[in-house]
C-alpha cells in the first residue's frame, strides 16, 4: 500500500514537473523559431534600408524605425496615463477603502482586465476617436494618444492587482509605527507604506508596461496605422503605427520566406527582446527587494 502511494505521488509530481519545464521548452522553441525565421532578414535587407524611416513593404521600403518609434511612444504615454490611476487605485484599495467598497472595487477592476481588447478598440473607434478629435481640435482622432488611453486602460488592472498585493504585504507594524510617531494617515501612506512596497510596485509597473507593449488589436483599431516617424513635438497627437499592429495586419498576405516575411519575424524578435528586458528589470527589482528585507530582518 505504501509503495503504491509513493508511486502515485511520484506520477503526480512528475506530471507537475513536466508542466513546469514545458514553459521553458515553449519559450525556447518560440525563440528558436523566431530567430530562424527572422534573422535572415538581416542578410536580405541591407542595414541602411532597415534603419531608414519609410515603411512600405509592398514596394520594398523596409524602414522599421517608425514602427519602433510608434510602439515606444504609445507605450510610454500609456504608462504615464496608467501609473497614477493604477497606483492610486492600489493604495486606495489597500489602505483607505472600507471593506464593502473593496468588495465592489476589486471585482470591477478584475472585470476591466477581462474585457477583450477588441471590444475596447470598438468603443475607442465609436466614442473616444470622435471625442478627442472635437475636444482637442485634431485633424483626426485616430492618433497615438487615443491608443495610449486604451493601452492605459488595459495596463491599469495589471498594475492595480500586483501593486495592491505588494502594499498588503507591508507588515502592519510599519503603519502603526508611522502613526505612533505622529504622522498623518497621508504621510504614513506616502512616506512609509509606499516606499516599503516600492519594489513590488515597480514590478507591477513593469508588467503593466509589458502588457501595453504587446497589445495589438485595440492599438490597430484606433492609432490610424500610418507609419510616420514620431519625431515632432506633437507626434503623440498624430497617427502612428506600432510594431504589433504591423505584424498583425501584414502577416496574412506575405509570401512565406520573402524578405517582408523575414522582416515581420525580425520585428517579432525585437518585441521579444523588449519584453524580455522589461521582465528581467521587473525580476531584478523584486529580488533586490527580498535581499534588502532580509538584511533589515537580520
Amino acid at each position, binding site marked *: 500500500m505504501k509503495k503504491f502511494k509513493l508511486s*502515485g505521488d511520484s506520477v503526480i509530481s512528475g506530471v507537475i514537473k513536466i508542466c513546469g519545464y514545458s514553459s521553458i521548452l515553449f519559450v525556447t522553441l518560440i525563440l528558436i523559431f523566431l530567430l530562424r525565421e527572422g534573422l535572415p532578414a538581416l542578410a536580405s535587407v541591407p542595414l541602411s534600408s532597415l534603419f531608414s524611416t*519609410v515603411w512600405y513593404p509592398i514596394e520594398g521600403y523596409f524602414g522599421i524605425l517608425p514602427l519602433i518609434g510608434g510602439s515606444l511612444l504609445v507605450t510610454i504615454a500609456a504608462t504615464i496615463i496608467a501609473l497614477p490611476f493604477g497606483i492610486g487605485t492600489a493604495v486606495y484599495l489597500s489602505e483607505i477603502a472600507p471593506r464593502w467598497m473593496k468588495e465592489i472595487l476589486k471585482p470591477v477592476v478584475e472585470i476591466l482586465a477581462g474585457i477583450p481588447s477588441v471590444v475596447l478598440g470598438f468603443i475607442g*473607434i465609436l466614442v473616444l*476617436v470622435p471625442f478627442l478629435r472635437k475636444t482637442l481640435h485634431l485633424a*483626426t482622432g485616430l492618433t497615438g494618444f487615443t491608443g495610449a488611453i486604451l493601452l492605459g486602460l488595459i495596463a491599469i488592472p495589471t498594475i492595480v492587482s500586483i501593486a495592491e498585493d505588494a502594499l498588503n504585504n507591508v507588515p502592519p507594524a510599519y503603519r502603526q509605527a508611522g502613526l505612533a510617531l505622529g504622522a498623518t494617515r497621508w504621510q504614513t501612506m506616502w512616506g512609509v507604506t509606499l516606499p516599503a512596497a516600492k519594489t513590488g510596485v515597480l514590478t507591477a509597473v513593469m508588467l503593466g508596461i509589458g502588457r501595453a507593449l504587446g497589445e495589438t488589436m485595440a492599438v490597430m483599431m484606433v492609432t*490610424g*496605422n500610418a*507609419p510616420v516617424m514620431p519625431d515632432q513635438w506633437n507626434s503623440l497627437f498624430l497617427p502612428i503605427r506600432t510594431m504589433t499592429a504591423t505584424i498583425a495586419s501584414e502577416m496574412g498576405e506575405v509570401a512565406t520566406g520573402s524578405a517582408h516575411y523575414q522582416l515581420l519575424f525580425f520585428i517579432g524578435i525585437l518585441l521579444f527582446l523588449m519584453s524580455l528586458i522589461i521582465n528581467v528589470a521587473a525580476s531584478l527589482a523584486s529580488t533586490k527587494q527580498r535581499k534588502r528585507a532580509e538584511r533589515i530582518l537580520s
Partner: protein
Amino acid sequence: MRKVLIVIGGILFLLLAGCSGRSQEAGSAVTPSQNNAYIENKGSDTIVNLALAWAEAYQKVEPGVSISVTGGGSGTGLTALVNKTVDIANASRQISPEELASAQAAGLDPQEFVIARDAIAVIVNPENPVEHLSLEQLSKIYRGEINNWSEVGGEDRPIVRLSRETNSGTHVYFLDAVVRLGNSQDKAIFSRDTLLLPSSEGIIAEVRDNPNAIGYDGLGYVTSEVKMVAVSGLEHPDDYVLPSAATVTNGTYVISRSLYMYTQNPPVGAIKDYLDWILSPDAQKIVVDLGFVPVK
C-alpha cells in the same frame, strides 16, 4: 490515493465524453445526401458580402453544398489558395507573378474567373462642400502634394487621407490607377501620413465622423452616411462622373476594376457547378442588388 484515483477517473471520463461527442457530430454530418460538398471560400474584403450572398442563395439551389466564406484581403485569400487551405480565393486584383510562381511551385494551376465589376468610390464627409475631383487632384492628394481642402475648392481644413491596409487588393489597385495614374514607370507611393485602416468599415466610420477625411472604398460598401465625389478621367478632365453601374459599364467612371475568383486547378464537380452558377443571370442579379456591376 483515493483522491488521486478519483481525479484521474474524472479526467478519463471527460476525455472519453469529449471523444464520443465529437464522433457523433462527425457521423451526423455525413448522412444527409449523396452530392454534398464543402467549399472553402476566402479573400478580398470587397467581395466578402457578395460571396456571402451567393453562398446563401446557393443553399436553395444546391442544399447539399455548404460554402464557408471569410474575408481578410485579396493577398490573404491568394496566399491561402497557394497553401491549399481554400478551394476558391476571392481577389479584387489579378494574381501577382510572384503568387502565380509560388502556386506553380506548389504544383497548382490557378484558374481565373471574372465574377463581377466594381467601382472604387471616393468618399468624403457629407459636411465637406467638395463635389468633384479630377484624377490628377486625387493623385496629388494621396501623394501628399495637396494637403488642404481649400486647394481643391473646399474649406480651409487639413486633409486626412484614409486607405485600406497594404494587403488589400483595393489598396494595390488604387496605388496603380490613381496615385500613379496608371503609369507603371511611376514609383510614387502613398503619402507617409496616409492612415492605413484594417477594414472597409473603419474607413466608412472615420469618413462619416470626420469632415477632414477622404477615403476610398468599393461602391458596394458606400452607405448613405458618406458622400461620394464625382471623378473625372485624364482624357476628359472636365467631365465629372459619379460611380454607378451604368457609368462603370459605359466606361465613363474611370476608377473601376474587375473582381476575380481563383481556383487551385481547373474546377471540377461542386466547385465547377458553383462557379457556373455564379456567372448565371440569377447570381448576377445579386451582384446588382449589392451595388456591384454584373459582368454580363
